[in-house]
């Protein structure tokens, strides 16, 4: 579905933000990119949805390079949920989700009844029906993240790009968001997300990339890639990875930082 080949990007000639990035994501895959602050994760995500132009290499959807897509065209394939932002105007939740229908509207048209129905079912599928008429500025951070998911779904994309979808959220909301990510992947959506929590790679992804100084130093199944050694490389701390039973004959892995007393 999504193929990234030899991608490189830099803002100016001297400093390279990332280079030599290649991966591909199939329908139903969840790729989780782990890396320290400033390792180039966000920039990579922004390049994939063409907000920034790659310096070299390519991003293609179904063999077609994204630089040949128009904005509207691309937005029907990719939706992007940026990190938290503070909107200026207090639009209602429904109005915010309706914005997801933009790629399907003609230049001079406004959303139709059908668009409103699609937006409402998107709101329903992330379980925030009760917020539908609330001003977007007056709901909590966790609720906002869910609303942005609904907006992304209203876009009816094939690929979902998430930039730190769980940051700024409380523990419960983090898990709720991860559940939604898994659910969406089960419907055949390809998902690329960045995260600061290696645990989330175990919970939600079937593919994990370790990014350090603008390169993928490892990519593959989370069990093989999220290792004590790799985590030490990117975060420069000691981490112990342990298995715990979830009580249903399933083992899940968790990362525990080791602090010397």
């Amino acid at each position: 579905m999504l193929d990234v080949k030899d991608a490189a990007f830099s803002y100016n000639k001297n400093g390279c933000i990332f280079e030599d990035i290649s991966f591909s994501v199939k329908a139903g895959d969840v790729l989780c990119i782990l890396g320290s602050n400033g390792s180039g994760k966000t920039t990579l995500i922004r390049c994939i949805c063409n907000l920034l132009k790659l310096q070299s290499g390519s991003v293609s959807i179904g063999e077609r390079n994204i630089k040949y897509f128009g904005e509207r065209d691309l937005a029907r394939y990719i939706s992007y949920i940026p990190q938290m932002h503070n909107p200026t105007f207090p639009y209602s939740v429904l109005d915010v989700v309706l914005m997801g229908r933009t790629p399907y509207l003609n230049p001079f048209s406004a959303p139709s009844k059908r668009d409103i129905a699609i937006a409402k079912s998107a709101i329903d599928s992330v379980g925030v029906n009760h917020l539908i008429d609330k001003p977007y500025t007056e709901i909590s951070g966790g609720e906002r993240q869910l609303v942005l998911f609904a907006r992304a779904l209203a876009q009816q994309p094939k690929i979902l790009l998430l930039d730190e979808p769980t940051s700024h959220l409380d523990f419960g909301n983090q898990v709720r968001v991860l559940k939604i990510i898994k659910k969406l992947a089960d419907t055949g959506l390809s998902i690329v997300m960045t995260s600061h929590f290696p645990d989330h790679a175990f919970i939600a992804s079937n593919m994990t990339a370790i990014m350090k100084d603008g390169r993928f130093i490892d990519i593959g199944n989370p069990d093989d890639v999220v290792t004590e050694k790799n985590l030490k490389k990117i975060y420069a701390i000691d981490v112990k990875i342990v298995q715990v039973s979830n009580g249903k004959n399933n083992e899940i892995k968790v990362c525990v930082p080791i602090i010397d007393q």
Partner: protein
Amino acid sequence: MIGRYPISPIEVITVILSKILPIECDNIAETVIFQIRIPRIIAAMLVGAGLSISGASFQGLFKNPLVSPDILGVSAGASLGASIAILLSLNLFYIQIFALLFGLTAVAITYFVSRLVKSSSNLVLVLSGMAVGSLFSALTSFTKYVADPYEKLPAIVFWLMGSLSSVSNKDLLVVIFPMLVSIMILLLIRWKINVISIGDEEARSLGLNTKKFTTLMIICCTILTASAVCISGIIGWVGLVIPHIGRMIVGPDHRKLLPATLSLGASYLLLVDNFARALTTVEIPLGILTAIMGAPFFIYLLKKSKIGWS
């Protein structure tokens, strides 16, 4: 009822009907109504509507409720144009043409200056607008400085205060079509103003061609503001405050906000213009009244209700 030449409402109706029905009417009243009052009423409504809708659109585009329609330098440019025309002893027609051309030029300069900076951020546009605006304002001050203090300086100062007293049918014919077309376009794209108001990048990722869209909005708003300024002079405050009043009434959704500001702006300026010409024996410049009446009302609304942005 309002105005120097008293005509009763029945007379007004008779005169208007005489255009389609064979009724006898007073010739002077006919001239007053068709040559002076109707053009002035239409001009007041057009200017009010135009300034308000472009204010609302710009506030959405720049994601900033403090933005007014002259943020990109159109009023500063128009002021310079008018001042130069007055300085050159040109007649009213040329004053308006100069105001229009200089207003458009100022915005064009702002736009191209902002394109020099390698950034898609609308903040650059606002900053370039401020720079170009203050440059043109300085040049306007210079024209005032060199103007003849007994004849031309008062003319410049009076023009800058804004007035609709000299609007004629001919002036209206020049501006009415571009203004109506711009208003129509803004109304047609009003839902997408919601989308661009959440931020340039997000709007792009939602499939909006923000570069084209921004340019289209700037062109429409500039035509509206420049046309308004060229027939009425500088009328501040309307384009800033009417959108806020609109938001207090119908909420932030531009689908409702734009039509609301349109009618609020038209009614407001018509009302204020009636005061301007009838309150005292001498006409009060419109720009002074819009602020004197608007500011306290706005403060009252701020205190009373939700402001519609955060």
